[in-house]
């Protein structure tokens, strides 16, 4: 009897300790976030961590830049996360992060956001590889439009074998979907179909699904997939950095880093670092799929 009573009290003790915990935890977790953002606003030159979120296409590049930047500036700290271009724009607008990465231009109503174009990425239609499309290497923009709006349903109509086309989409939040839709379909007019919410999973799905076709950033180009070139007039234009820089291949977008108001302090240093000639030509150009902003011979002011 005595022992049991003793144990019970012990258990109560544990519960009480947990009670202390749950009474105190919520304010504590709000504390640092709130104070971090206020210090960042009040003293922009402070050495608090710079938070970056958004485009998963740009993430590998920002990570590469972060490593080099932090080695050169011992006191600086950059935290990079990804969640899609539109999330990056939402986060930087709300002040949750200092830099929002995006494959697309900010919406017209987000006037307080300042654009920094740091690189260019090309996109292409990519398809499951098989005998059914062995003879299909390039498609016209009109053919692509018909495929992705669901009008053409068989590889036979594209010069391949009789095999149903399975269109796989990215989620609507995807920058890739937005850019590809704007250039190829003149807007988000994709046929409603199977949807993957990130590029990595999409590559796996494309390899697995016979007859499948989708669209990806060229940083995800894969030898086990068919990367389709474009038929423009009588020419076949490959999605190469040179063709994109010269404006011959139209499916590309800027990689933007948005700040709320002009960039200041460490954010500015970090963006300037990425834009520096040294980083653009020696690092960025060697990361798969990225094209230095400095090599572009044409410009755009909307997607």
């Amino acid at each position: 009897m005595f022992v049991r009573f003793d144990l019970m009290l012990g258990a109560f003790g544990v519960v009480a300790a947990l009670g202390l915990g749950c009474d105190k935890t919520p304010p504590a977790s709000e504390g640092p976030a709130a104070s971090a953002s206020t210090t960042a606003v009040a003293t922009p030159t402070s050495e608090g961590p710079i938070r970056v979120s958004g485009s998963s296409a740009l993430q590998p590049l920002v990570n590469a830049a972060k490593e080099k930047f932090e080695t050169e500036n011992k006191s600086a700290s950059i935290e990079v996360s990804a969640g899609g271009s539109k999330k990056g724009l939402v986060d930087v607008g709300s002040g949750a992060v200092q830099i929002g990465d995006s494959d697309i231009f900010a919406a017209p109503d987000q006037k307080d956001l300042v654009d920094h174009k740091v690189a260019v990425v090309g996109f292409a239609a990519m398809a499951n590889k098989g005998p059914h499309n062995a003879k299909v290497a390039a498609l016209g923009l009109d053919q692509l439009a018909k495929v992705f709006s669901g009008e053409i349903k068989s590889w036979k109509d594209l010069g391949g074998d009789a095999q149903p086309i399975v269109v796989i989409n990215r989620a609507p939040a995807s920058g890739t979907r937005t850019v590809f839709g704007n250039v190829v379909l003149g807007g988000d007019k994709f046929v409603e179909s199977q949807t993957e919410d990130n590029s990595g999973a999409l590559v796996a799905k494309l390899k697995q699904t016979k007859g499948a076709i989708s669209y990806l950033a060229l940083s995800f180009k894969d030898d086990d997939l068919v990367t389709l070139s474009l038929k423009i007039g009588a020419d076949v234009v490959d999605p190469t950095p040179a063709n994109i820089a010269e404006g011959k291949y139209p499916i590309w977008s800027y990689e933007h880093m948005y700040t709320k108001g002009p960039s200041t302090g460490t954010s500015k240093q970090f963006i300037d670092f990425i834009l520096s000639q040294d980083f653009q030509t020696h690092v960025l150009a060697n990361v798969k799929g990225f094209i230095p902003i400095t090599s572009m011979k044409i410009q755009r002011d909307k997607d």
Partner: protein
Amino acid sequence: MQKAMDVVRTAVPLKLRLGPRPRWPDAVVRLFIAGCGGFVLVTTLVMIAFLARTGVQGMSEVGVWPLLTGSRWKPEADVFGGVPLILGTFVSATGAALLGATPAVLSAVWLTEFAPKSTKALFRRTMEISAAVPSVVYGWLALVYLVPLAESVAHGLYGSDAEVGGEGLASSAVLLAVMIAPTVLLLSVDALSRVPNNLREASAALGASPWQTAFRVVMPYAWRGLLVAVFFGFARAAGETMAVQMVIGGARKIPANLFQPTTTISAQIVMDMQNARPNTPASDALFSMSLILLVISVGVVLMTRALSRTKRA
């Protein structure tokens, strides 16, 4: 706390349990426990209130009628038809309840009425383990093994040129059936074990075989408990998110058959939430769908409550 326990230990001798003991540790502990309880309660109430407010706001913005009857869900174009989502949730949860609960209830009957004692314990432990496997693990296994299988079944049924694939309601119903079966089984075993033994003995004394006893005496007596088990399985299936999202395909349209990609309420919330800026119709409509999901789950739970309260089963 250790000190307080020492005080109690010295203050309460073995034979004098009702003796005087210091009151303040008691009061402090009580306060903490009450505080914790209150915290949980307040959190829940605040959450439901917020969901109700934002959900209703969303309904007034996009309209209840389109939300409940529209057949296209396309928030980026401000089109909010909830039918594909609600239909997907209902069909996959109902399919799961049928496919998963039938074997689960029958194996519970076998376990309580026919299985040897040693098997019983082993079986129970195994089911407890499967009930504890995280849903993302089930989802991943299904994506790798079930979806390709479903794809070949689909092409077998509809022909190799048909617009069908492995992702869809069939896969998600089968996956959910596997996921809810352990829970339904454990709850059914509990319900069947509560059947008084003298009923079984009386049945045997009247000359009924174990088979007749199980199906004509034990199951009818425990039907409420069994129904509660099945409904809980349904509620769990309706709310399951991660695993379903991995196999449902994610197309926001009403599928023509069980082998075409579609979506469910929970899967679509996960898909859309990163795209929804706060205080936009897109975000509010997501809260409306969350509210509908909550109403479905709470409705099912209340129903089981009502059933189990009518009579102890």
